[in-house]
């Protein structure tokens, strides 16, 4: 490559660099497909066939059938009416509630989880860190029915915290709060979402090297400049990816909400649940499928964004 002028050079280099980042993935994929077909390497994949078949039968077939049947009327003919009902009125409201609930709870847990992760990575002792990490591992796995009931004992009408607040003259139930509302659910969801975020954020914060801080300082950067140009950009992708994971997680959550509100809160999973349990709208036996397809749609959007974030980050990650 001859270097004629600065601008030109940078441009051609840009193209070169761009190719280079994406090529290894593409190249190896093509190559492995060729090898796969050419050298009979498919035999190698026989061993995973049982797994794939199992997954196909018990996950993919049900998922696909939900989407397919969403387009069927009661008589089996193609129709879009399930969707037109599913995305209007009370069902539209529940989509709105679900997305609102997931957004709120994901935003809160992202912020709090990040703060906790920062606090424990920065702490000098190993013990505190070990305790918080192990605790997060356990609490992130807590959920569902028991969680719902322990919050009834805490923030329910006769819960401990409610009682204490009432004693100091502030009964939250007199001020519009209810555990059995979207706000209440948001609080309960934090119980497993925050630890999840802590677990997600510890490795990337850990991976911020002291050398980068030192190098930035030696180059004249202030602490704020370090965070703006190096620390921030490095933490943004895992933070965003984590946010999307939390969003999906709370969007799909059913058990906690069902146990807490006895299936009365208008969010999509609960609506699908009550349609399954027999509250079928006459003439729209497949309405639940339309709602399910809608949920899959939302989750797919989140998954695509997640993939996009990961790909952006992988420019500078291995």
């Amino acid at each position, binding site marked *: 490559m001859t270097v004629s002028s600065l601008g030109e050079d940078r441009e051609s280099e840009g193209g070169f660099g761009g190719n280079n980042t994406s090529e290894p993935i593409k190249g190896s994929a093509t190559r492995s497909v060729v090898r796969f077909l050419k050298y009979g390497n498919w035999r190698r994949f026989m061993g995973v066939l049982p797994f794939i078949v199992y997954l196909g039968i018990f996950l993919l077939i049900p998922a696909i059938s939900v989407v397919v049947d969403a387009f069927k009327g009661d008589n089996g003919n193609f129709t879009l009416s399930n969707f037109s009902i599913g995305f209007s009125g009370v069902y539209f409201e529940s989509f709105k509630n679900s997305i609102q609930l997931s957004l709120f709870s994901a935003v809160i847990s992202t912020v709090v989880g990040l703060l906790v992760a920062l606090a424990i990575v920065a702490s000098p002792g190993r013990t*505190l860190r070990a305790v918080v990490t192990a605790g997060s591992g356990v609490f992130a796995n807590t959920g569902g029915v028991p969680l719902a009931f322990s919050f009834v004992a805490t923030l329910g009408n006769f819960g401990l915290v409610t009682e204490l607040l009432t004693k100091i003259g502030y009964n939250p139930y007199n001020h519009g709060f209810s555990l059995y509302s979207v706000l209440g659910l948001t609080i309960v969801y934090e119980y497993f979402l925050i630890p999840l975020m802590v677990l997600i954020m510890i490795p990337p914060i850990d991976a911020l090297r002291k050398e980068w801080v030192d190098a930035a300082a030696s180059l004249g950067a202030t602490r704020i400049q370090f965070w703006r140009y190096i620390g921030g950009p490095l933490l943004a992708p895992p933070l965003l990816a984590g946010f999307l994971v939390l969003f999906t997680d709370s969007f799909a959550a059913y058990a*906690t909400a069902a146990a807490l509100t006895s299936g009365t809160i208008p969010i999509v999973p609960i609506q699908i649940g009550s349609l399954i349990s027999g509250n079928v709208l006459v003439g729209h036996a497949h309405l639940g499928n339309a709602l399910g397809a809608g949920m899959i749609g939302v989750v797919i959007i989140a998954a695509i964004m997640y993939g996009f974030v990961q790909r952006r980050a992988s420019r500078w990650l291995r």
Partner: protein
Amino acid sequence: MASVIGVPAKSSGVGGSNVLRVGKVFRAVVLGAVGLFFIVPVISSARFSFTGSSAGFSFSAYSKLLSDPQFWSTLFLSVKIGVGTVTLSLAILIPTTVWVHWKAPKIRRVMEALSLLPLVIPSVVITLGVITSFGSLPNIIMGTPVILALEYVVLALPYTYRTLDSGVQALDIKTLVEAGQSLGAPFRKILWWVLLPNLKSGVLGVVVLAFAFCLGEFAVASLLSFTTFAVYLVQIGQTQASEAIAFSLIALLFTWIPLSIVTVVFSRRAGKKSRRGGGVLMSSQSVTELVELSE
């Protein structure tokens, strides 16, 4: 970092107070507030289970619960489903993960992604799909808890697959198999005598995670109208709050204790790995390593 002496924490070069320099006050406030949020519900549950909404301390909630025959029968049902799920999971996952590492390491990533699929599709939707597509199957499958075990194998995959996969990765499968073969052992025997004993911690992880999942799963079981442990818990919750809360506390402790053991065992191993690798940002890895049994 050859000559930084007396300060091992700093010389590690990773993380450490130097990078973040977070104030003590900030740390105390954040960890204190969040810690409170996590402890208060446990305390509240304990108190509620002993006193109910009335005053006075008693074990009545617990004794009533333990003498309730349905408590035991639903627990037994959930345990049966759990045993089935664990057995089936191991039967499918051990050969699969061993095979992937031994013969087709290139598709490891793909397999990992596949194992995470159940996280993407909400379990309510899967249940709907099960009804839609298997509704016409004979009663022996759809009408019995067998269908639950079959589905739980799939739904628990995001936790079980990764656990076993990292267990297998810790072994050098190829070398072990080749060493076994060079000594004249057939593959079956190698799997049984060489690989399985070395996979103990991975298998244990799968057992704990899958079992805890089965005990706690509510959505699929209730929507398919099976009265499992978790479903029964909700049923009592409608009428007898203090019993349900006592029940919850027991259930929480039952999942937390084995989970803490698994977490400690695995975090120790993961810690070793990450220190060795020293990779830049492991976000993608960590996100896929999420182990959550919430729903």
